[in-house]
Structures are given as structure tokens and as C-alpha cells.
């Protein structure tokens, strides 16, 4: 069931521009006329101004169409999360297999390096980095890269662990006896064996990265306006929640649903692929 929701969300994100066009709105146009300036910019009408034109209402303070913002926000949030996860898996796989298969020196050096990366406080450094980078760089891409570069330690560590275990399997020895070089062994024997644990780990990594992105946007160092992001919307929502609770509930609820769906998928994957994998996050 989680998979169904997840797929739906991905579809929404992917087709965001289409959906917005269908709804006849875009996410930047201000609609002041829909706001009640007497109450400080709260949307007119109940439930945050839901109407047939604005399916999810409008944003307080700016009057921008919430549906469009939410839908584009999905694109950004999911995009960054997926991008970061993919990068983390790639880097982690590379470093992990190199450490696992390489000689003692390579392993020692790489492991130290991985330890260093694991010791980095992701949120803190990300905040610091993002603060000083100039504004004109493409933000979502930057976000994904920063998150990935700081967070690949986990995938590297489990890859290395699994590679070391797989390396002792007799069929690897048999391949070596038949004349296979280490690259071929990595490709044909080790990598397929890594699919299960890495996939399981990555499935949980995705919602984690989403949370990081949302957090960063919440703090104001993530995606910048006018590009919408659910975290960012929640940030502005804090000031409005007494007057317009829908503005909190809609992006918040969607964020929760999306994350939950991915967590369910991850859980299902874990049970299907490796019922014994314990989750020691060291």
C-alpha cells in the first residue's frame, strides 16, 4: 500500500507543471484580492480559501495558489531527496567496494576517510555551507549535492561491510582460481550481492534526505522563494497557524503522507529482502 502512495507522489512531482496548467494556475502569481487585509492577509473564505478555482486554497500573505505551490513543491522536495539519495548510493558503492576489495592500506585509508565523513554533522555543515554560497547557483541542485556529499558515509560503511563478507565466500575464490581479475569479480560476484542490503538502506535513506531538505528549507537556507518547497511552506506556516491552520495542515499532511509511504516501502523491502538485517546505525 505504501508503494501505491509513493508512486502517486512521484507521479505528482513529475507532472507538476502539467497539473498546475490544468488547474489554470501557477505558483508565482499573487492574488491579493483573495486575501483579507483587515486580518493581516489571511485568505478569504473557509479552509484557507478553497474554491473551484483554487483547489487547495491560497497562501496567506501572498495569495499564491496553494495547489500549484504544493505540486511544484512536491517536485522540488522529491527531486532533491531522490537526487541526494542516488548520489549517496553511487559514492558509497564506489568507496565501499574499493575499501572492501582493496588491499590493507587502501582499506585502512578509506575507512578513516569514511569515519571522518560519518563524523560530520550534516545539518550544521549544510547550513553553514549554504549560507555562504552565492545566491545565483541553482538551489535544488546545490542542495542535493551538499546533502549527498555530507551523507554518503552510511552507504559506504554498509557497502564495505557487505563486501568484506562477500569477499570471503568460496565462489569468489572459485572465480579467482578461474582467472577473474578483481574488477570482474566486483562486477559479477560482489555487486549483485550488494543489491539487497544497499537497496534496503537506500529506501530508508530517501525519506531521511527528504526530511533534511525540508528541515533546511524550514530554516531558510534551503530552497529560496519563489521556488516552493514543503519545508519552506511550513516555515512560513508557523507564523500563520493561529489564523490559517490549513496552511500548516496541507503541506504538513502531504509531507507526512509522502514520508510515510516511503517508510512503508522501505519496511516492505526490508522484510522481503533480508528479514534479519538489524538496523545498527553506527
Amino acid at each position, binding site marked *: 500500500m505504501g508503494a501505491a502512495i509513493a508512486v502517486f507522489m512521484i507521479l505528482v512531482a513529475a507532472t507538476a507543471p502539467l497539473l498546475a496548467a490544468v488547474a489554470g494556475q501557477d505558483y508565482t502569481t499573487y492574488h491579493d484580492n483573495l486575501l483579507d487585509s483587515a486580518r493581516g492577509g489571511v485568505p478569504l473564505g473557509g479552509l484557507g480559501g478553497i474554491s473551484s478555482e483554487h483547489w487547495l486554497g491560497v497562501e496567506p500573505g501572498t495569495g499564491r495558489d496553494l495547489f500549484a505551490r504544493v505540486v511544484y513543491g512536491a517536485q522540488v522536495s522529491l527531486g532533491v531527496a531522490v537526487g541526494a539519495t542516488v548520489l549517496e548510493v553511487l559514492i558509497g558503492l564506489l568507496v565501499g567496494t574499493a575499501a572492501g576489495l582493496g588491499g590493507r592500506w587502501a582499506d585502512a585509508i578509506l575507512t578513516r576517510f569514511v569515519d571522518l565523513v560519518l563524523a560530520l554533522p550534516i545539518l550544521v555543515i549544510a547550513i553553514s555551507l549554504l549560507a555562504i554560497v552565492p545566491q545565483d547557483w541553482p538551489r535544488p541542485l546545490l542542495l542535493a549535492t551538499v546533502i549527498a556529499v555530507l551523507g554518503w558515509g552510511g552507504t559506504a560503511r554498509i557497502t564495505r561491510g557487505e563486501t568484506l563478507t562477500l569477499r570471503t*565466500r*568460496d*565462489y569468489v*575464490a*572459485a*572465480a*579467482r*582460481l*578461474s*582467472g*577473474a581479475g578483481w574488477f*570482474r569479480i566486483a562486477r559479477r*560476484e560482489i555487486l*549483485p*550481492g550488494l543489491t539487497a542490503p544497499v537497496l534496503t538502506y537506500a529506501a530508508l535513506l530517501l525519506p531521511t534526505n527528504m526530511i533534511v531538505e525540508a528541515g533546511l528549507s524550514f530554516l531558510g537556507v534551503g530552497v529560496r522563494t519563489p521556488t516552493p518547497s514543503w519545508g519552506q511552506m511550513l516555515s512560513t506556516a508557523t507564523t500563520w497557524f493561529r489564523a490559517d491552520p490549513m496552511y500548516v495542515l496541507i503541506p504538513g499532511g502531504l509531507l507526512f503522507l509522502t514520508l510515510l509511504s516511503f517508510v512503508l516501502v522501505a519496511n516492505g523491502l526490508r522484510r522481503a529482502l533480508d528479514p534479519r538485517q538489524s538496523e545498527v546505525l553506527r
Partner: protein
Amino acid sequence: MTDLVVEDLRIRFGETVAVDGLSFELPAGGALGIVGESGSGKSATALALLGLHTAATVEGRITFGADDLTALTERRWRQVRGAEIAMVFQEPLTALSPFHTIGDQIAEVYRLHTGSTRRAARDRAVEVLRQVHIPDPARRAASYPHQFSGGMRQRALIAMALSCRPQLIVADEPTTALDVTVQAQILDLLDEVRETTGTSLLLISHDLGVVAGSTDRVVVMRRGLAVEQGATDAVLVAPQAAYTRELLAAVPRAKPPRTIDGGPLLRLAGVRKHFRQRRRAEPVRAVDDVTLDVRAGETLGIVGESGTGKTTLARLMTGLLSPSAGTITLDGVDITRRRGGSVQMVFQDPMSSLNPRRTIGESIADPLRLSGVRDPRPTVEDLLLRVGLTRALYDRFPHQLSGGMRQRVGIARALAPRPRLIVCDEPVSSLDVTTQAQVLSLLEDLRAEFGLTMVFVSHDLAVLRQIADRVAVLYEGRIVELGDTAEVYDQPQHAYTKELLAAVPVPDPAEARRLRALRRAQVTA
């Protein structure tokens, strides 16, 4: 003292029937063996005697003294377990709690059943540890299980079983995880315990040799039924049932000697292999100055117990490991430099020797593809037939095959690149006795057909007797004896060889008793 009477025992796990109407008697103070291969229901029977089944239905009657063990309350069970019937498990490392010292574990059990003081319980723990001949028992009682060797751990388990002076000890494959010499010691210990305390013993094993030397009566089980039972001397010497005869026939027999006139194919000269240990100055000398030749066309057996370095030696011989010192050459060429599949290996563990994600056909084809063969399928199918499998298995996956079949696949893979030398590292150790016999004869046939040279590494002397032309005895990384098989077995020179030979379990009860006396003499010597 109490008799144990089992009548028409049936144990079912849902739809599967593990034991289907088993009946036997164990008189007080006697020793009964239950022997059978995997799936015979012997372990299920053992667990039923302690009421340890949680998911099975147990029917029938088990009379032990005044109790019927199939109908005990949980409360009564807690009194019976440990105090009247005690169990010795197969794997001593996992059977003991890693978080408590041995002394604490034994004392706890003793205190539980007798309500004694802590001091008295501790004293009892030391006492039983001494009874099982653990040196310096007072100090060792404060050690943790992982600090003991395998044999000592099993002694500790036996000590725990003795602590409350039970009427009956059930030993479920107590020696399967142990080395041959240690196995003999443990069996001797169980025998001694029985003599000195008068406790009944129920010994369960897949190995006829183990049962032969340690029991008065034996029950042969197959698929949940007792195929034959009676006095050990009778059943094992003159078996009535066909299955029993089959089991006895599968026990490895001596091989007729051959003359080998090939020149040396593989030469090891002064080979050493050291592994550095973390935090210790002394490295582990896995292989310590080994010099030997493997002649073309022969089967060289290498025997040694665990930790003696035989796996390291096997891997050195194939070039998977490089020696720390010395040279290994195949036909004059250094083995680590050779290309191609002229040396191949058959591995011990059928589970990890095949890539679980690849079809077995592809696994066999791998070496062929690596040497450039375009379409290896016909050759692979041919090989499958040669090792006694069918072509259709090409597209199956390892988990769909039995252990014995997987081992045959491993052999086929080793044969694929037409090697000169095959090193077999304990290839039959994890197989049933009947399957073992089949694989051994297959290896013999293939060697003759393909003109191979084989090195066969094993801890099992009986197996080597059937298949090896010459035997090298490995002890602590050194070759302590080397010679033609018949000579080594009949006239062993080195003390360790003698010890090994005296420890081999043999299915002939009279021979087993002779060996026990021999071992006792060795110990006092």
C-alpha cells in the same frame, strides 16, 4: 535409578511428521544410542524428552519413573529439567550464555534446583568442573565461554549437566562440532561419567562410529521410524535391516594400494605462512616450514584437525594465498604466476561455494567463458552428466539443489577448465554418510578418467583411507608424518598420528572398545 520407556511416540509439526511411532527402552544406568541421518527424527525425539517443543504436537507415552513426559505440567517440567533429565547440546559456544561466567551459569542451575547457598553452589560448580577434567577449575570457573576452546566448552556443558546429579543425560550430537581427538576425549568422558555416577545416557548421533563405542543398545532411525534396534554388538556387527546395512556399507573402506610412477607435479619447498595478530607480537604460524611433493596422478591426503593450518595449506597450493616464505611450483612455474585454470579447488561448504544468484550452469560455465569459450553450454551439460546430474539442472539455482548435488556442481566447475591438479578442501564433511560415499566414489572415478592429480584435505581419517594414495599428517603447521596410506595407518610413527588413529570412531563395537583402552593408555603414558 529410573528406567526410560518410550511407547509409540509421534511428533508432528503441522502437516510434517517428524517421528512416526517410535518405541524403545533405556534401563537405568544403561547407554542407548539413536543413530540416523538428517531428517530421521532423532533430534525431535531428544527435544521431546525435555519437553522443549513449542510448535509441535507430541503424542504417545514417555514413562520416566513416576511421570509421563508427554503430559507434564509446566511446573513439573521445571523441576524435571536439569535435575532429573539433563541435556548436552551440540554447539557448546551458542548453548552457553555469553554474558555470564561458566561458574555462574552452573551455580545458578544448581541453586535453582537445590535451593542451596551461593557459596555451596559455587563449590559444586568447581567440583563438577573438576569431575570433567578441566584443569585449574577454580580459576576457570570465572571465565566466559568464549575464552574456552571448543572441547573445554563441551566439558563445561557436561559439567552443567552433572551438577544436579540427574538420572538421565541426553546428549544430542555432542561431538559433531569437535575435532576427532577432542571428540574421542568427550566420548571417553561420557563413558567415565556413566561408570562413576550410574547415570543413564541417551546418545544421539549420525555417526555409527560414535555410537559403536559408547552404547550398549542402539536404535537406528529413518524418517521418523525405528528401522532396527537391539544390542549394539548385535546390530552393528550383523545388521538385519537393509538400511542399517546400507549405512554400514557407506562407511569408508580402505583403498587398495596403487603404484604411482608420475614425477612430482606440485612442489612445496620450505613454505611458511604467517598471519599477523592484532595486539600480539607473535604472528600466527599457520603453515610452518612445509616441504612436500605431489606426484602426478596421485591423490595426496592431508589430515589435520581444525587450526592446524590445512585450509591455509590448501589455499597456498592453489595460489589463492601467497606464502610468507618458500616456493610453490607447478611444473616448475611459480604457482602465483600461472595463468589459466590448471589448478582448481573443490570447497567444503556447498552453501557458499556457488553464487546464489547465478544458475548452476552459468557457475560452471564461468571458467570456460574466462578462457574465451564462446558457447560453453554443450560442454557444461556434458560435465553435468559426468558428475551424475542431469542436463536440465543447467538453469536451476543453488538453493533448489540438495547439499550433495551442490557439491557435484562444485566438482563440475572445478573440472571445467581441464585442470591438472584439483585441491579438495573438506569436500564431504558436511554431507550425510550415504551421500559422502557417493561423492567420494565419483571423485575416484573422475580422477581415473581425466588423469587428474588430487590433493584431498580432511580431518576425517576414515575418508582419507578410502581415497588417498599417500597421507601427510599436519600438526601445528608442520608435516609430522608422510607416507603411503597403508603404512601410515598400520605403522604410525609420530605420536600425534597415533593419537589421531586411536581417536577415529569405528562402527565395530569391539574395535571401538580396543581403541578406547588404547586412548586410556596414551593418556596415562
